[in-house]
């Protein structure tokens, strides 16, 4: 809890500093965000005052998610950019409504010999004709990240000590997770998965119109032991699975809907037979069998690393043991 308090303080301070800065917001290229086509280098956006140290430029606001998406254990640094004078709009507990010209920036890093090694930075740019997702891969010198439209693979060591072939997604793969109804949208910054302090700091800095109304926030992942098993697991599934497993998204045809707000037991997989799982079923009959995580397809696929079986399909080269444990605890207690 101390960590959370410190983190919230740091973010609040960052927003406050930004708001009181007397100089105009400089550094970030609004033209690159809104009109830059396929911007070749991350530095062209000017999101960072010190890219190597991941120190954001003025106007670029760091944030965290209560329950984050697992990406092979990568350390993630998240930032929001709002153009000068623009405001985010509260939208209930869901995605913040971000204006054209806004950008979301997420850097993925792993530790190597104690040093942080930047792997890739993904940006979501809100242009007049919609959101655009672009992936950038960091160079060996850790000074610049360049657009890798077709993605890349590279070898990294995870915090768990595994050596894996890490996948930088291609532009289309960005959309496989970020696609809804054929358009690209952000996934992460939903009010229910953001800290109240951070949201309040945005409002007080004039960067958001009002405080979003959130009935129940997603649990803090590192504090999950003290939270109800159902809330922890449903938060995990919402964040890690529901961008595809929901109506209108990539896995809609499965009929499985893992969103936090879905309260139909069958829709979230309890007693639900697979549709197009193929050998992903692992010989099991139902997505979730209450009390039997060992007989639940959902857990079987989370535990697998085999193509055609493993879930999620993208961005996974290792099993998220903590995530599996959280879901097993929930199913086991049903």
């Amino acid at each position, binding site marked *: 809890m101390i960590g959370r308090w410190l983190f919230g303080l740091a973010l609040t301070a960052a927003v406050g500093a930004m708001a009181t800065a007397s100089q105009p917001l400089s550094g970030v290229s609004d033209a690159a965000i809104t009109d830059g086509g396929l911007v070749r280098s991350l530095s062209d956006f000017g999101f960072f005052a010190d890219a190597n140290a991941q120190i954001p430029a003025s106007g670029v606001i760091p944030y965290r998610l209560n329950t984050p998406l697992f990406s092979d254990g990568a350390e993630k640094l998240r930032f929001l950019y709002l153009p000068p004078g623009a405001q985010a709009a509260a939208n209930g507990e869901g995605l913040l409504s971000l204006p054209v010209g806004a950008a979301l920036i997420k850097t993925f890093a792993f530790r190597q010999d104690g040093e942080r090694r930047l792997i890739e930075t993904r940006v979501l740019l809100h242009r007049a004709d919609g959101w655009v997702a672009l992936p950038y891969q960091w160079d060996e010198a850790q000074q610049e990240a360049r657009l890798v439209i*077709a993605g890349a*693979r590279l070898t990294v060591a995870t915090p768990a000590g595994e050596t894996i072939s890490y996948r930088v997604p291609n532009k289309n793969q960005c959309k496989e997770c970020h696609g809804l109804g054929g358009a690209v949208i952000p996934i992460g910054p939903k009010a229910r998965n953001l800290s109240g302090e951070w949201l309040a700091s945005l409002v007080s800095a004039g960067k958001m119109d009002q405080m979003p109304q959130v009935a129940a926030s997603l649990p803090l992942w590192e504090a999950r032991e003290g939270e109800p098993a159902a809330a922890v697991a449903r938060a995990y599934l919402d964040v890690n699975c529901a961008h595809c497993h929901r109506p209108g998204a990539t896995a809609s045809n499965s009929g499985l809907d893992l969103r936090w707000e879905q309260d139909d037991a069958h829709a979230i997989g309890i007693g639900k037979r697979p549709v197009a799982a193929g*050998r992903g079923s692992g*010989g099991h009959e139902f997505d979730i069998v209450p009390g039997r995580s060992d007989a639940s397809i959902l857990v079987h696929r989370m535990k697998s690393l085999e193509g055609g079986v493993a879930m999620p399909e993208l961005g996974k080269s290792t099993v998220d043991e903590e995530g599996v444990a959280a879901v097993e605890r929930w199913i086991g207690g049903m």
Partner: protein
Amino acid sequence: MQNLNAACLSALIMGVFAQPAAAGVIEIAAGEGAQERLQEALIMAQPGDEIVLGAGRFELSDGLSLDVDSVTVRGAGMDASILDFTSQQGAGEGLLVTSDFVTLRDFALENPKGDGVKSKGADAIVYHRIRVTWTNGPAATNGAYGIYPVESTGILIDGSKVSGASDAGIYVGQSRAITVRNSIAEANVAGIEIENSRDALVEGNIATRNTGGILVFDLPNLPVMGGGNVILRNNLVVANDEPNFAPPGNIVAGVRRGTGILVMANDGVLVEGNILKDNPTAHVMVVAYTQQYDDTRYNPYARNVVVGPNSFGRGGDDPQLDGAAQLLAAFGGALPPVLWDGLAQGATGLTAVSGVAGWSLNLTAVGQGLAGAQPGPLTVPAPTFAFDDATVGAPAELEARLTR
């Protein structure tokens, strides 16, 4: 794109969508860096472009995807341009298409880890002379579907070939306006499967050495329901005798080895002009869905199924059914060609033209189980339910693309 709305659909059928002039041809050769070069071309393509795959073997480490409308991907032939996914590390399929008006032709995919080609929400798509092969033959470790269009309107699959799929070779799901034609499905669990789909024509195909040849059915609890209006015509459905190798849990894992054509929980299916031979359980099986479900939109009965004139050869002589020995003895060594469970919803039960022989389980309730069966000869009325060819199959605009 999501499914086109009704207005768009009628425009599509009338062919009023102007095809952009061929804006460009992008040639991609096999060899070093094929993954990045091909994927980049698929991303950077403009509507109207044609991506031409050279002859040779493209060694791929990840799934490919296309999200640009009106793009053609053309190889040098299904035995010449081969996308080899034997070393694939990620993604759920070999090639994912999520854009409309796409044409895929004259290339092959081998050993994808998951599905072969999946096209989702991809309207007006043509698969022409596409081959998907799991080269080690039937195995539960193979991917599920070879050619896999889903949630789409306007699908033409022609001259294609799939073998080794651990679920269905050619699987069309939650779609409408479909033609599957002149294709070969061999050594899959299900050869060709039409699921939760409407207005489909399955014609002139060969289904052989599968567990089941051609399957038409609806499943409950899917976003798209109400499958039917399907014509299965002039197919060669022979020697579907592969032991079922589907992983348990999947619906096709319940398909009996030796099923020629299976119709389950669907409304309006015409079976005519097919040649069925050497399917050891049943040439034609018409049944209700027997598992429990909780979906008020779902109808488990097979309704308005019509068996017209077909050529029935030897079959039903080694059925994978409880009590097979007694059944064979009762029917003189081979079961008659058509197997019905006897379950009808009102007047929509099975009908067949004069001379079609069959037998019925004479069940009286859905989900009753075979223990309640009282097998007897099939006696059903002559067909009165009418099918209209004009209402099935892919729009003409898709046909026109085959000649380009």
